[in-house]
């Protein structure tokens, strides 16, 4: 369809259709019909009117120098340090991957309340459901903490999912979580927002303007990446960002990644640079994606013979256990 639209651009429709072979013309008419019935197009009464609809500007920018952060925490005492990092950089979106035990929601509530005083706008919380909290417990918890937009309770007794206006609560029976489990590409993660699309055209949709601190206190691009840019005991986040290779992955776009560059979903998709089909090639396709754009089929990536070597390389063998 894009080819036809490009071809017909600025021409009178009847002329554009007239220039086509009978067979192509039938297809083009089908396209036009589709665009009109779905209210994706309308007829202009003049070339002047047509020309007053310019292509949309596809540039992307954000006021925040770091737009999102992932903090792995295994000790609640580290929260103070995280709060300082958020304030220093005005990070708007924060994800906490919590490894300490949450047995009591009242105690946890006091810890999360501290985020009310810093500048982040949203908070996602991933944790283990030690306390066997119900979806109702967690809904009530998130209602009391308006910054929470997502809570995932791993190791729950059942798989349940509930969404309110501002929050998604997920109970998952999946037992393990954290860095090894990140990076999965699937249709459920597609993002149709214009800002995601424009960011994707020029930047990496996972790592651009992201920062993270892993359980050991290493400052990284994301907890799953190997490279550390310093330890929080002797490096500030601002210093880590200024290190020469910190932004290396920020501008790797899908148009540069092999296979992805041919994929129709590339600019609404997520990405992963931590687990790759070819671990030696930073432009390789995400390992945990099973989509084949040449056959338009989704396959199970974790058992795919072509991916076995890479899975072993990253020691993700638990997948096949």
């Amino acid at each position, binding site marked *: 369809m894009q080819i036809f639209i490009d071809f017909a651009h600025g021409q009178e429709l009847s002329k554009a259709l007239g220039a086509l072979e009978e067979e192509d013309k039938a297809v083009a008419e089908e396209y036009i019909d589709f665009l009109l019935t779905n*209210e994706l197009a309308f007829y202009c*009464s003049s070339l002047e009117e047509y020309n007053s609809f310019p292509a949309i500007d596809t*540039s992307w*920018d954000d006021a*925040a120098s770091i737009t999102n952060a992932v903090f792995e925490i295994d000790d609640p005492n580290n929260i103070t340090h995280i709060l300082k990092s958020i304030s220093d950089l*005005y990070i708007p979106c924060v994800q906490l991957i919590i490894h300490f035990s949450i047995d009591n929601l009242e105690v946890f509530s006091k810890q999360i309340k501290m985020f009310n005083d810093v500048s982040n706008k949203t908070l996602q919380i991933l944790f283990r459901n030690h306390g066997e909290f119900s979806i109702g417990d967690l809904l009530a918890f998130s209602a009391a903490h308006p910054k929470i937009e997502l809570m995932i309770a791993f190791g729950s007794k059942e798989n349940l999912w509930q969404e309110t206006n501002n929050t998604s609560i997920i109970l998952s029976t999946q037992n393990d979580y954290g860095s090894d489990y990140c990076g999965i590409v699937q249709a459920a993660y597609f993002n149709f927002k214009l800002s995601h699309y424009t960011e994707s055209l020029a930047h990496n949709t996972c790592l651009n303007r992201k920062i993270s601190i892993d359980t050991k206190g290493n400052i990284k691009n994301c907890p799953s990446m190997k490279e550390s840019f310093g330890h929080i005991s002797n490096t500030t986040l601002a210093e880590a960002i200024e290190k020469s290779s910190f932004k290396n992955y920020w501008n790797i776009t899908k148009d540069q990644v092999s296979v992805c560059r041919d994929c129709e979903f590339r600019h609404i998709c997520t990405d992963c640079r931590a687990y790759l089909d070819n671990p030696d090639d930073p432009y390789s396709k995400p390992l945990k994606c099973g989509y084949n754009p040449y056959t338009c089929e989704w396959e199970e990536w974790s058992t795919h013979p072509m991916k076995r070597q890479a899975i072993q390389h990253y020691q993700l063998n638990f997948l096949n256990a």
Partner: protein
Amino acid sequence: MVLILSASNDVSTDYVIEWFRHYKIPCIRLNERDTGNILASVEFRNGKQFIALNIKGQPISMDDITGVWFRRSTITFTSALSAHRKKEDALAWQIAALLDRENRVLTEFIATKLSTINALNNQLNYNTNKLLTLMYAQEVGLKIPHTLIATVKDDIRNKLGNADSEIITKPIQDIFWLNYSGTSRAQYTAALSEYSQIPDRFYYSLFQERIEKKYELRIFFIEEKFYACAIFSKATEGRNVYQDGKMVRMVPFSISNTLKEQLVRLSSLCKLNSGSVDLMVDKQGDCYFLEINPVGQFGYISKECNYHLDQKIAKFFQHEPVQQ
């Protein structure tokens, strides 16, 4: 320091402030509760005025203010004595009335003074007179829908035509919110229904020919830069962002040079250096002016058309030319 007069629930201000921070432009945000009696003293001396302000408990000289964004709220002055107005005491009432006049002079002076410092808008022009605006639109050569203000039923039929469905009615001034039984309702534009039930005489009401619209244009402007958005909605006037559960389609639009020149003249007649203009394009492609608003929402135009307006407003205060 840039002074921002906003409202606590205005999210657009939040986004602009993020860009202020990005460009390291110092600013102070005043919401509706912070804008009262901000003047500490004014001194007229040696051919100059020395104005000391007290903003959120912080002493600031007017000379330190480098820009003002009149976004929502207004500088106000109120005296504790105003409360006496409700009492049955004729003298207290008159004194309160006197203080009201004093306050009006103070407000006008401070607002005018602020509006001369690299200001976006001016609170003294917040309330555009809808009828004057229509007149200005005519003066600059914009088409407007055939409009009538009348008190007699026969005038509607005689002056605007017959078919009830082709006439709409709306408030002479701006949208007015009515609060009753715990709910708020706005007076939006409505099609004139059941002509036969209209009384023969009524109080001044506004009627307009209904334009068969193809799409609407909402145009945000900062000085002479215009950011237009075409809105495809079936509603009488596309104020609803959602329709049948779907997002209303909004796409970038580029206005002709003629229209641009007309709008530049219109905004100058309305004394607005920023705001948004509503227009309607009919089935024949003719463009009709509806209204101009000094403090309209621009967030969704910016988001849907990717105009980066938050950033552009911040840049206005950076003394850098705004890029189209």
